[in-house]
């Protein structure tokens, strides 16, 4: 089978799904956007923006890179043996890699995946061979430049047996004009492998964002994901699903959502604990500013004995016009599962503010200290300099309010 054969088989399914809305989030008319290559040809001039989403164009402390502007791959590199970082189309010339092509994310998930498939242009392919531990992160940057465009990268990450890699994805829009980003991501973590995935978004207030991510984790594998959304969007809806298929596999999903401006945000995540001894947690921190509306979803399904799952959704309202809905869900399909959740939404406690003022801080400083504390999530499993970088981002987010 080659790529053409694979696409021929999938095409009718995708075509049928072109009008299928997503179960959550604002329903968009795709006719308002065009899926073309776009005029962007380089990341030059975007250094500052990219730095703010974790991308270092000098590639210091990076094992590999992939840069995509609009729907064109403009650069890729891999600096370690056993690591492949390539534009998807190039990678798919190897028929072996078709095993991962639209296998985790069904093309007919909704109209966004269908449109992404039918107009498919590019994306990144990252593979780590069995037993290879990639020491420093691989970075992927997805930059949206052309107005009115659908940017639809299709990304595949394959982590081999007992292999490990950190992937940082930074996504940003260079203009204030309308656009739609549909990122389809399929992640495969093999036996004993570890994938940490850090994604930082800095879109603009006219951009709609629809990432579609599904992860499959084999026995003893670990998937850790940290997502930070820092800036306003027109609308954002995502619901990554991690299937823990192998015994004793683990997942940790955390997201930090700043609801700014008039953003309409619906961010969730699901863990399917499909095998005995699996465990995982979903953590979210949502801040409601301006007139933003955010729905924070989290779902853990216990489908095998001796699994453990936890959900923690916290929301902090900093504006009377903003709204936060937290929807934690637990589903047990067998006995002997341990599923728990906690959810809390509130304002800054007056008592804490007064306490910090008594400690010598101004009211503004006290507020930013409390917000920073609220944003503190466990950044587990990441290399030290990445943790420092992310903590720096959280510091400046808290200080910017």
């Amino acid at each position: 089978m080659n790529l053409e054969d694979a696409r021929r088989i999938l095409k009718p399914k995708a075509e049928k799904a072109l009008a299928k809305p997503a179960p959550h989030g604002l329903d968009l008319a795709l006719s308002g956007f065009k899926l073309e290559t776009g005029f962007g040809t380089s990341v030059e001039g975007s250094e500052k923006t990219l730095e703010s989403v974790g991308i270092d164009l000098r590639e210091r402390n990076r094992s590999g890179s992939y840069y995509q502007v609009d729907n064109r791959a403009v650069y890729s590199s891999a600096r370690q043996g056993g690591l492949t970082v390539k534009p998807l189309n190039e990678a798919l010339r190897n028929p072996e890699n078709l095993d991962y092509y639209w296998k985790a994310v069904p093309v007919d998930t909704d109209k966004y995946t269908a449109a992404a498939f039918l107009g498919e242009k590019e994306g990144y392919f990252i593979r780590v061979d069995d037993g290879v531990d990639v020491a420093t992160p691989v970075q992927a940057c997805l930059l949206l430049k052309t107005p009115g465009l659908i940017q639809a990268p299709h990304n595949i990450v394959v982590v081999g047996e007992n292999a490990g890699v950190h992937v940082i994805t930074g996504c940003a829009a260079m203009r204030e004009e309308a656009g739609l980003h549909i990122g389809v991501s399929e992640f495969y973590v093999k036996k004993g492998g570890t994938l940490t995935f850090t994604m930082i978004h800095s879109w603009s207030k006219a951009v709609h964002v629809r990432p579609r991510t599904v992860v499959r984790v084999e026995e003893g594998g670990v998937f850790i994901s940290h997502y930070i959304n820092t800036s306003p969007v027109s609308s954002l809806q995502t619901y990554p699903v991690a299937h823990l298929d192998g015994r004793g596999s683990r997942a940790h999903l955390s997201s930090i959502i700043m609801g700014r401006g008039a953003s309409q945000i619906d961010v969730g995540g699901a863990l399917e604990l499909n095998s005995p001894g699996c465990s995982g947690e979903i953590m979210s921190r949502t801040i409601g500013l301006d007139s933003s509306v955010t729905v924070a979803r989290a779902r853990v399904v216990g489908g095998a004995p001796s699994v453990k799952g936890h959900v923690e959704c916290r929301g902090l309202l900093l504006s009377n016009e903003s709204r936060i809905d937290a929807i934690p869900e637990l589903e047990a399909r067998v006995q002997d599962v341990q599923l728990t959740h906690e959810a809390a939404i509130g304002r800054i406690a007056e008592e804490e503010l007064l306490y910090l003022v008594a400690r010598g801080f101004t009211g503004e400083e006290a507020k930013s200290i409390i917000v920073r504390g609220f944003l503190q999530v466990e950044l587990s499993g990441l290399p030290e300099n990445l943790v420092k970088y992310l903590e720096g981002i959280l510091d400046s987010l808290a200080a910017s309010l």
Partner: protein
Amino acid sequence: MLYLKGLVVELGGRTIIKGVDLSLGDGELALLLGPNGSGKSTLLHAIVGDPRYRVASGSIVFEGKELTGLKMEERVRLGLGLSFQFPPRLKGIRLRHLMLRILEKRGLRGTEAEDALEEYSRLLRMESLLDKDFNVGFSGGEAKRAELMLTLAQKPRLLLLDEPDSGVDVENLGVIGPAILHYVSSNGGAAILITHTGYIARHVKASGAYVLLDGRIVCSGNPEEIVSNIMQHGFEACEECRRARR
């Protein structure tokens, strides 16, 4: 350093402090004693300007300056430091971070701040708790030591200590008491220390003591005498003493 004159304080519409006069000089440490609900905490919160407490009448003069019209922020800047009886738990905020931010407010940065942090944490034996969230999961003694450390790090001229010894075992008392004594004697400030038990009195070398009953100071004088009387006869003896003097 501090003069209170005819101070009346309300909390939630109720009058708690019903006319208090008090004066405290440089280098002095006064014990403030009294049963539960007598208004001790209210008095300290009112001095520091906690907006939940309303000064209905009277004056608070600190180093020649009238404080009653000033916000808490300004009073703290002038050198008042209140150590809370029940500080809140601050999830996600590490003790180390809070200390460094406080030291930064004092103009200490980089290695200077690190050195000061080390010194304070050694003084109050907080080294192993610096990377914990403030007050989250702290024992009674740890919470008191942490609160005192933050207050001392502000380097206030006037220390207002709300029960630094309550719920604290002998060992912790042996850390907290000397730290307060060392601070007051080496910085030339002054302190008002609320205590229920008087045990801490042995450690801090108080220069005076006041007994507060139902919002009024009913007795003041030699701290050793007052503490030992209360230890022997309880606050009922103060009540009787007040009646006898009328």
